[in-house]
Structures are given as structure tokens and as C-alpha cells.
């Protein structure tokens, strides 16, 4: 039995790109209560690397609920 959501079969983070002055985290797919913990862990890992700035690209996220927003706010703080 698949442990994945019936709607999304891939993680919410498509790519993490380290640039000179920032780390760009590119998201994909829908972010909801099921997938936001994965996003949280990815952001924790990125923030832990002490990049000068973290940029989150959500241009390819068609839906994000309040759990996703909360994850971003938590990362901001």
C-alpha cells in the first residue's frame, strides 16, 4: 500500500540551489497538512546551513493551505 497521498506522489521541494548570496528553494505541487511537514524539514535543513538569504519560489504551487503558510512563517521567524 502506498504511503503517499493520492493527489501528490512527489515531495514539495523540487530543487535547492545554492547561489553566492542566497539559497533558492523551488517548490512544486500542492502544499497542505500532509506535505507541509516535508517542506518544514527542507527549510530547517536549508536554514541550518546559515545561508545569507533563503528565497522560496512558489510559482509552481497551485494550492497552499494555512499549514503551508504557517511553515513559511515559522521559517521566517
Amino acid at each position: 500500500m502506498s504511503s503517499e497521498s493520492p493527489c501528490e506522489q512527489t515531495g514539495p521541494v523540487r530543487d535547492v540551489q545554492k547561489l553566492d548570496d542566497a539559497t533558492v528553494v523551488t517548490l512544486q505541487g500542492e502544499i497542505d497538512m500532509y506535505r507541509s511537514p516535508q517542506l518544514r524539514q527542507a527549510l530547517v535543513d536549508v536554514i541550518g546551513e546559515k545561508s545569507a538569504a533563503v528565497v522560496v519560489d512558489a510559482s509552481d504551487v497551485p494550492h497552499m493551505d494555512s499549514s503551508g503558510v504557517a511553515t513559511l512563517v515559522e521559517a521566517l521567524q
Partner: protein
Amino acid sequence: MSINMHQQTINITLASDPKQICVARTAVETFSEREGFAKEQSEQIGLAVNEAVANVIKHGYHGQTDQPIKITMEMTTIEDRSCLKIVMRDHGRQVDPDCIKGRDLDEVRPGGLGVHLMRTVMDQVEYRCLAEGGMELTMLKFRDT
């Protein structure tokens, strides 16, 4: 999860598993758009249901993933206005409905946005405690708004 259609009413029974939130949301969006709501409105209605289900999972069932959540949706007429009525029932922890409200958004902190989003999207949001235990949520969206 089960989805049953009876005439113009759709009944969805899902487990309190976050994996199933997206299926309920998609069903609500599809039903709303089919009943004449614009695509963006339908997505917002889906978001309201998404938030409501997440609240039941988190607060009503304390994260248990095997408890039932029942959603009924139908078009109805209230005071001569066509309206989407969504009713959600659970067997979880009961809360005084007067205590379920959005928080002050001036405070920037994670969490606590679900009820605010529901009340922003839907025209009416009402909770009540069920005599047999659990909560019932009724949300209305008028088609002409």
C-alpha cells in the same frame, strides 16, 4: 474513503488522515464548479473545506488518522438565493462554538489562520456540538456573491 451521490447530494466519508484532505478538496472544487461557481471561487471553497478538515484532524481528533469525517454537500435555496451548503460532522472533541474564531492577524506567527480563511471565503460558517458527541460544521456559499 467513500463518495456517494444521491440525487443532487454528495456524501463523502473520509478517515482523519491528512493524505485524504486533497481528495475531499478536489471533490468539493469539482462539485462547486459543476454547480456554476467560477473556477477561482470553487478553489476557494475547496480551500475552506481543506481548512475545516485539517482542523478536525488536528483539534477534534488530536492527530488520529483513523477517525471518521463526514461531508455532505448540496445546492439548496435559502431566501430565494441559490446556495451551496456543506455540512461536516465528526466524533471528535467538542468545543464551545463561541470559542472558534479567527485570531488577530496583526500578530505574525505560524498557525491559527484556518478559521479566518473559512470565514473569509464562505458566506456563513457555523459550528454546533452534537448531542451524540462530536461537532457539526455548516458552511454556506451563495452563488450570487
